[in-house]
């Protein structure tokens, strides 16, 4: 069936987007923007786990990555300062 190449396409595109989002987290100097990029990355990483049929890991990633990591990063930025030093 022609479903085959569609699955390959999805398997190729999603990791590329993940890598782009992870690179963004490094590139941004504004730390809030970097935290947003990390949140987007963990979101897409969860989608990737999900597509690879590992729902256990996807749920753990959803709980920890989407909520707790962002929370801790934002609280840490709040306690220090927003701009990255050069």
């Amino acid at each position, binding site marked *: 069936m022609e479903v085959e190449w569609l699955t390959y396409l999805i398997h190729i595109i999603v990791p590329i987007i993940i890598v782009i989002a992870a690179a963004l987290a490094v590139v941004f100097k504004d730390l809030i923007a970097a935290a947003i990029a990390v949140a987007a990355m963990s979101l897409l990483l969860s989608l990737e786990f999900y597509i690879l049929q590992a729902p256990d890991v996807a*749920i753990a990633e*959803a*709980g920890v990555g989407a*909520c707790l990591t962002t929370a801790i990063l934002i609280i840490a930025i709040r306690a220090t300062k927003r701009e990255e030093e050069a």
Partner: protein
Amino acid sequence: MSGMSRIVKTMASVTFPLALIYGLYIIAHGHLTPGGGFQGGAVVASACIMILVAYGSVWTMGKIKEKRLSAFESLGALGFICLAFFGLIFGANYFFNNFLVHPEGLDIIFNGTAKGLSNINTAGVIPLMNFAVGLKVIVGLFAIVLVMAYATTKLKGEK
């Protein structure tokens, strides 16, 4: 006045019990569907964190006693280890023995595989361990964020 607008507060209050029951569902069905103690615990902890961010950490700290938090975490750890030791006592001679899976006197509660799988009361000791680990994860993750948020907030008298 730390806390978000009234709309966010109301919506967090409406969503909170739903998220709680959903997380507990994941913990309870750990042996049937994907999920388990850690995952469900993360969901419940996130629901508590939603209340924390909507109402502010000072309000939340006023509702919760720290001693109770540490007691619950210890309860989770103790339950986990006790279940492991019960395997030594009641079953064969090894740690983490699943002694409830084919019980002799407890057929009514833990009917093992008698009714077929996909039942919530199969799998012996695994659901209980799920709850123990879940309790530990809930309290642990929530305590981390709560303490961090409370420590970085300026209280009324402070400069």
